[in-house]
């Protein structure tokens, strides 16, 4: 057999003595019936007998039945004057752009009856057209009940006129006194806003504009400015790459604004003739286990200091210079091999780095220049990140020195995101004027004199220059829900202009950007491209600074790598329950941030992870101290974490303007000192254990093998498909036959050759695990949020999960043999040392799993009420109204994809998330029913979407073309990993994928004949 790797999901599986794995694999629902149904953990002593209980229950049931007999009176209120574009029941789509200072994407907004309900990718847009998980979830933030509903002064509601008049007066006074005023915004890259700010500064010359990014890219910006003479960041097109070397750059995450995964994935699927198929090669040097590292062909865990050495060594080898570094012999060998790869890769080679170190960034630019990389594009550069850390540090000092007269902040939350937030707050109070333009009463707003309520981006106008010559427009998709005003509108009126912001955009675009093209068309498309291009020339010499890199020295203590999580990012949307409940792709932990520690370090520090018998995870609590700042965080032992390093996510621990349920995690910003994500810290174990809500060890696939299939490019090219993708065999009359052959099939098969037959193909090569599909599924299907407590009890409701499997080169049994064969103390020490290897640097595979829509579905046969039934189009139907909640189907499902509604998750104060308030319920998709308590639910293969496509075609009297059928997940997937379609259409993409030799079914041996197919993962090793 080609692939004898053993896959594992958690440390505990490596421990052969643990009975836990067995125990969990026996049980799908690990918990007994809850005893704390209504919050009280113990049943009080009571005189109520069982008989009494039954009596009461009988009476109340009868009473409830009688009460339910009377139907409610529903009223319908039609429009008085119906807008022309709105037809009840039909969705409208608007192209717009999200720019919130952290995420930038061109998106389409689906609105129903005037309510935005879903974010979709605007695939027509040439750049940043893929929405990540946070952007998909941003529609829910529009309906956040904690939003500020109007302007306030010291917490008292005021009118906009009062606010504008007073602020204008104060500004004029400050201008007379020549007292400086700081205007702080995120990097907006908005041409019109820049113009408005310039006009504002012309009227009030004492105003200075600060661009402030919560997560700074200062080093990269400085390096680019030094090398090319413009303060910007280059753009990268990874679809041109053949060899990628990333040194600490999580470019599939949030590195330099993110958005690179779709280009990357294009090169990661082997393409070309059989035997000569090619794909790019990806090396990743990093400390934390990131998405990029998880997708790399080779991942080399290294500390930040080692990464600097690697950079120096690569530069030296490419330019034939020698920079002696303290690299280990093993790493040196690897670097030599990588350099050879880079040299042979031609212009498809690229080296990127995420080190927040100007020297390192300049070295990377120099290396790409030497390589002649076509992946990096300096002429189309982006100004989506412009913040300068040193200027912000100076500003806080000035504030405290009383030098700043006024502060106007828009879309930033420095009182939370600054490392020295307390100093900022005390300085802010010294300013005579402080105005916070904010959607929330956040940390900054509560310390400001004026809070100017701003609209959500879906209620706003705006424009942005994505990169040189690529412009995009933001337009409102709903009338503002509250009494809000955009920051630009207020600036305009403070300047004395009568223009509104949208008029200003139109005017600016007409005279500066459109050069005669139609504004309405640009607004309709959401983007506009000009032929504008920069002509920057490289002018830098890095030899001396590479010398510095090579001589870098590690400090004593652990190296802390601060990072942003796929779900929460910089923390702007921390009050978004979808994102809080989103399982991190790597750790599968929800509702928390944590200190990721390598197994070796954890042992030294005495930090533990304990898996409870019900599958829940507990972790020790660690105290992290840095220059007198101490932060406590729970510990998660992370396979693949570089030894001597620890990781901690920013964006958590927010408290102001948040529902109490969402106030989770630890604020790591105080450790983000000097805006450097790498810090040397002391870590000690603290008392107590933390309870995680982790989906990691839950729903194990019961040890049934062949779930993830994987091979190497070499074997893929040279061997027959039967070798690396063998069909499972079963024995019939002592003869091995394919499990899919007719003789092995006991089922009476339906004829599915007529009409549509839907299949969903999942390419393990293209899936980066980004999780956009998970959130899109939530939004489309009204999947409820259940909260941390329920997740911990394995009651997560995600219809679509992305399983993450770690693997090591050899089997775990081989490890055991090794232990048995140890002789002598010396050997035992060295062997045990090596034994740590599998978890020290595992390989990672992501596998999205949803209902497999089996043609021979085990769930359907066990349902006593026929609530689960099969459709001719290949979908496994679930009639919620028929379900009585026996959960037989979930027990009989080999894929563990069915989800049970343990409680009523809407209009229930016990679950105070978006479905508990009128505002939050506005996000619900009216085409999908909201399930009630006691009902089983699961992925429907978005039957409401396939039906809509069919019904539209019937209405228009036409056939359906390939590509029209979509599901929420396949629509959201930016990497092309998910492809959906009709296999009875011989020309469809999914039909070709079904016949591809990489195709396999999950648990083929069970004989379920799923309609979800997978493509074998090929690694370029």
């Amino acid at each position, binding site marked *: 057999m080609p692939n004898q790797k053993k896959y594992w999901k958690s440390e505990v599986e490596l421990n052969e003595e643990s009975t836990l794995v067995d125990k969990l694999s026996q049980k799908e629902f690990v918990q007994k019936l809850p005893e704390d149904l209504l919050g009280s953990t113990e049943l009080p002593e009571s005189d109520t007998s069982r008989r009494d209980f039954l009596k009461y229950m009988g009476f109340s049931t009868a009473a409830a039945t009688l009460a339910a*007999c009377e139907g409610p009176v529903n009223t319908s209120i*039609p429009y*008085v004057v119906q807008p022309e574009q709105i037809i009840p029941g039909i969705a409208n789509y608007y192209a717009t752009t999200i720019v919130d200072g952290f995420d930038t994407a061109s998106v389409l907004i689906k609105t129903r009856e005037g309510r935005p309900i879903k974010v979709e990718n605007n695939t027509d847009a040439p750049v940043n057209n893929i929405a990540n998980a946070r952007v998909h979830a941003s529609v829910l933030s529009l309906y956040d009940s904690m939003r500020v509903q109007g302007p306030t002064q010291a917490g008292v509601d005021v009118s906009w006129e009062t606010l504008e008049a007073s602020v204008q007066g104060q500004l004029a006074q400050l201008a007379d006194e020549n007292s400086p005023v700081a205007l702080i915004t995120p990097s907006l890259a908005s041409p019109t806003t820049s113009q408005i700010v310039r006009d504002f500064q012309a009227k009030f010359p004492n105003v200075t504009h600060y661009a402030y990014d919560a997560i700074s890219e200062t080093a990269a910006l400085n390096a680019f400015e030094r090398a090319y003479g413009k303060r910007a960041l280059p753009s990268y097109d990874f679809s041109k790459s053949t060899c990628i070397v990333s040194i600490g750059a999580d470019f599939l995450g949030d590195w330099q604004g993110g958005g690179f995964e779709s280009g990357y994935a294009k090169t990661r699927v082997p393409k070309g003739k059989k035997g000569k198929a090619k794909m790019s090669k990806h090396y990743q040097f990093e400390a934390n286990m990131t998405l990029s590292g998880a997708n790399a062909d080779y991942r080399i865990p290294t500390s930040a200091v080692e990464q600097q050495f690697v950079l120096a060594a690569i530069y030296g080898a490419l330019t034939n210079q020698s920079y002696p570094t303290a690299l280990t012999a093993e790493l040196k060998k690897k670097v030599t091999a990588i350099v050879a790869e880079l040299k042979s890769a031609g212009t498809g080679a690229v080296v990127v780095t995420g080190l927040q170190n100007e020297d390192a960034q300049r070295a990377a630019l120099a290396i790409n220049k030497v390589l002649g990389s076509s992946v990096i594009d300096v002429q189309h550069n982006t100004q989506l990140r412009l913040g300068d850390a040193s200027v912000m540090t100076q500003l806080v000092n000035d504030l405290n020195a009383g030098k700043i007269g006024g502060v106007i902040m828009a879309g930033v939350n420095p009182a939370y995101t600054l490392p020295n937030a307390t100093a900022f707050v005390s300085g802010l109070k010294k300013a005579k004027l402080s105005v916070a333009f904010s959607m929330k009463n956040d940390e900054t707003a509560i310390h400001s004199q004026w809070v100017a309520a701003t609209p959500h981006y879906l209620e706003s106008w705006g424009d942005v220059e994505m990169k040189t010559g690529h412009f995009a427009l933001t337009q409102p998709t709903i009338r503002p829900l509250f009494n809000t005003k955009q920051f630009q509108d207020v600036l305009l009126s403070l300047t004395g202009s009568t223009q509104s912001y949208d008029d200003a955009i139109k005017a600016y675009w007409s005279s500066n950007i459109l050069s005669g093209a139609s504004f309405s068309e640009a607004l309709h498309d959401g983007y506009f491209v000009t032929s504008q291009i920069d002509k920057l020339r490289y002018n830098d010499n890095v030899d001396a600074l590479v010398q510095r890199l090579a001589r870098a020295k590690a400090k004593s203590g652990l190296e802390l790598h601060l990072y942003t999580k796929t779900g929460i990012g910089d923390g702007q949307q921390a009050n978004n329950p979808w994102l809080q409940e989103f399982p991190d792709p790597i750790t599968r932990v929800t509702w928390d941030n944590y200190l990721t520690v390598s197994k070796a370090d954890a042992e030294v520090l005495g930090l533990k992870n304990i898996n409870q018998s019900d599958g829940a995870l507990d972790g020790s609590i660690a105290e992290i101290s840095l220059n007198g700042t101490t932060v406590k965080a729970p510990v998660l032992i992370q396979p693949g974490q570089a030894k001597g390093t620890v990781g901690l996510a920013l964006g958590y621990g927010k408290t102001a303007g948040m529902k109490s349920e969402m106030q989770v995690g630890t604020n790591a910003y105080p450790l983000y000192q000097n805006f450097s994500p790498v810090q040397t810290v002391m870590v000690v174990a603290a008392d107590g254990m933390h309870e995680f809500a982790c989906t990691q060890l839950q729903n194990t696939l019961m040890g049934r093998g062949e779930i993830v299939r994987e091979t190497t490019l070499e074997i893929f090219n040279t061997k027959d498909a039967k070798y690396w993708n063998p069909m499972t065999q079963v024995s019939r009359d002592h003869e091995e036959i394919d499990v899919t052959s007719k003789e092995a099939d006991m089922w009476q098969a339906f004829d599915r050759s007529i*009409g549509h037959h839907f299949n969903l193909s999942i390419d393990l090569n293209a899936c980066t695990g980004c999780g956009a599909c998970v959130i899109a599924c939530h939004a489309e299907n009204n999947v409820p949020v259940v909260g941390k407590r329920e997740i911990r009890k394995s009651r997560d409701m995600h219809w679509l999960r992305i399983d993450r499997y770690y693997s090591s080169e050899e089997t775990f049994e081989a490890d055991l043999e090794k232990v048995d064969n140890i002789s002598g103390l010396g050997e035992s020490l060295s062997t045990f040392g090596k034994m740590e290897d599998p978890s020290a640097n595992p390989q990672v595979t992501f596998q999205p799993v949803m209902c497999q829509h089996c043609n021979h579905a085990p769930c359907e046969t066990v349902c006593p009420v026929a609530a689960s039934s099969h459709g*001719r189009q290949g979908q496994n*139907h679930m009639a*919620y109204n028929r379900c009585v909640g026996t959960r037989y189907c979930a027990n009989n499902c080999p894929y563990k994809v069915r989800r049970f509604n343990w409680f009523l998750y809407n209009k229930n104060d016990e679950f105070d998330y978006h479905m508990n308030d009128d505002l939050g319920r506005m996000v619900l998709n009216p085409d999908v*029913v909201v399930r009630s308590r006691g009902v089983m639910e699961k992925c429907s293969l978005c039957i409401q979407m396939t*039906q809509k496509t069919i019904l539209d075609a019937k*209405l228009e009297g036409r056939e359906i073309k390939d590509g029209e059928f979509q599901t929420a997940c396949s629509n959201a997937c930016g990497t092309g990993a998910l492809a959906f379609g009709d296999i009875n259409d011989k020309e469809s993409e999914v039909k070709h994928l079904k016949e591809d030799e990489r195709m396999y079914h999950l648990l083929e041996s069970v004989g379920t004949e799923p309609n979800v197919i997978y493509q074998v993962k090929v690694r370029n090793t």
Partner: protein
Amino acid sequence: MHKDSFLAHLPLLILSFCFSFVVAAQEPDVQKGKALFNANCAACHKLNKRAVGPALAGVSAKYDKEWLYSWIKNSTAMVKSGDAQAVAIYEEYNGSVMTSFPQLLNEDIDNILAYTDYTPPATAAAAQPVAAVPQTESSLSNDLILGVLVLVLAALVVMLFLVTKTLKQIAAANGIEVVIEEKPKRTPLWKAYAQNPFLVFVTVVFLLLSSAYVGYSYLMQVGIDQGYMPIQPIHYSHKIHAGANQIECKYCHSSARVSKHSGIPSLNVCMNCHMNIAEYNGEEDLEKGYTKEFYTNEIKKLYKAVGWDENTQSYTGETQPVKWVRIHNLPDFVYFNHAQHVSVAGVDCQKCHGPVEEMEIMYQHASLTMGWCINCHRETNVNIKDNAYYTKIHEELSKKYGVEKLTAAQMGGLECGKCHY
């Protein structure tokens, strides 16, 4: 002289007599005028009330006849020429132009003016109470007859009682002992019944069965609101709109053609017609109180909701959206699409909604149960005419099932997931 002149004038007199006869024959015809008014003027003018244009009753008194001729034939020209009266009226109505009627002859205009000047004789008004009298009388007489009958019966009972009493007294007086014979003691009926196990068994079975039947039928109708006829905030009569005026259903419920919802029409759709129709002039149903005033009053409610000022013939901007009571309530877990049934399948609205054109008050005609849906899907053929979507699938499926025309059920219309998601 006189005589002479008389004689001399005789022929002239005769002539003038004849002429006047002719003139009398050409006297403006009120009936013709009414027809012309309804055909040409009623869209914008009312007799006694201002509409788009001014009220026309007594208009001939206000303006010179010749002026009226030329105004009606070409008002624009008159405004342009600067005629003072024309400009005044043009400005009073905010510059709205009156349609020109060059095709009308002067006689036609005379007829119209005769109609606008015509005052109906007052006698007609008296008819109403008169008509109402016999009705009350007849119901009164019915009651009376019943009352009398009851009295007669009561009297008979009393009389019989008195007769027996008297007879008994007579018998007593005559010394006749009325001996009531002691009958042999028989087991009382109920005891006999109770002692017969078979009868008891049959009765118990009967009672159980009937109570089960009653219970089942009761429970099965829970949540089924067939015949649900709520009182709406505005008395909207489908009978008048769809029945008498033959307005196509989808004129108002336009989204039924394209969307899953048939939609309650927005008020601007009502105003397409009701901008001109401010009062009801159709048939009345006096028994139920649906008089002209009643209906006109309902139109006023519409004006109030939509913010229409009749006097100025303009919108005030003050609206009060109408809270209609929803009649057809499908549960959330059912997906139903009007467009598929109306536009694709070509099903008549009446098939599910019943004889809407006869409904004074709208009610739920069908039970809207799942069985009702499914029955129809089993019986109805798929409408494949001119629909390219069905070409291939219908051909293949009909071959498979060996039928010429497929039913909706055979097309997959019975699958759970088609309606429940």
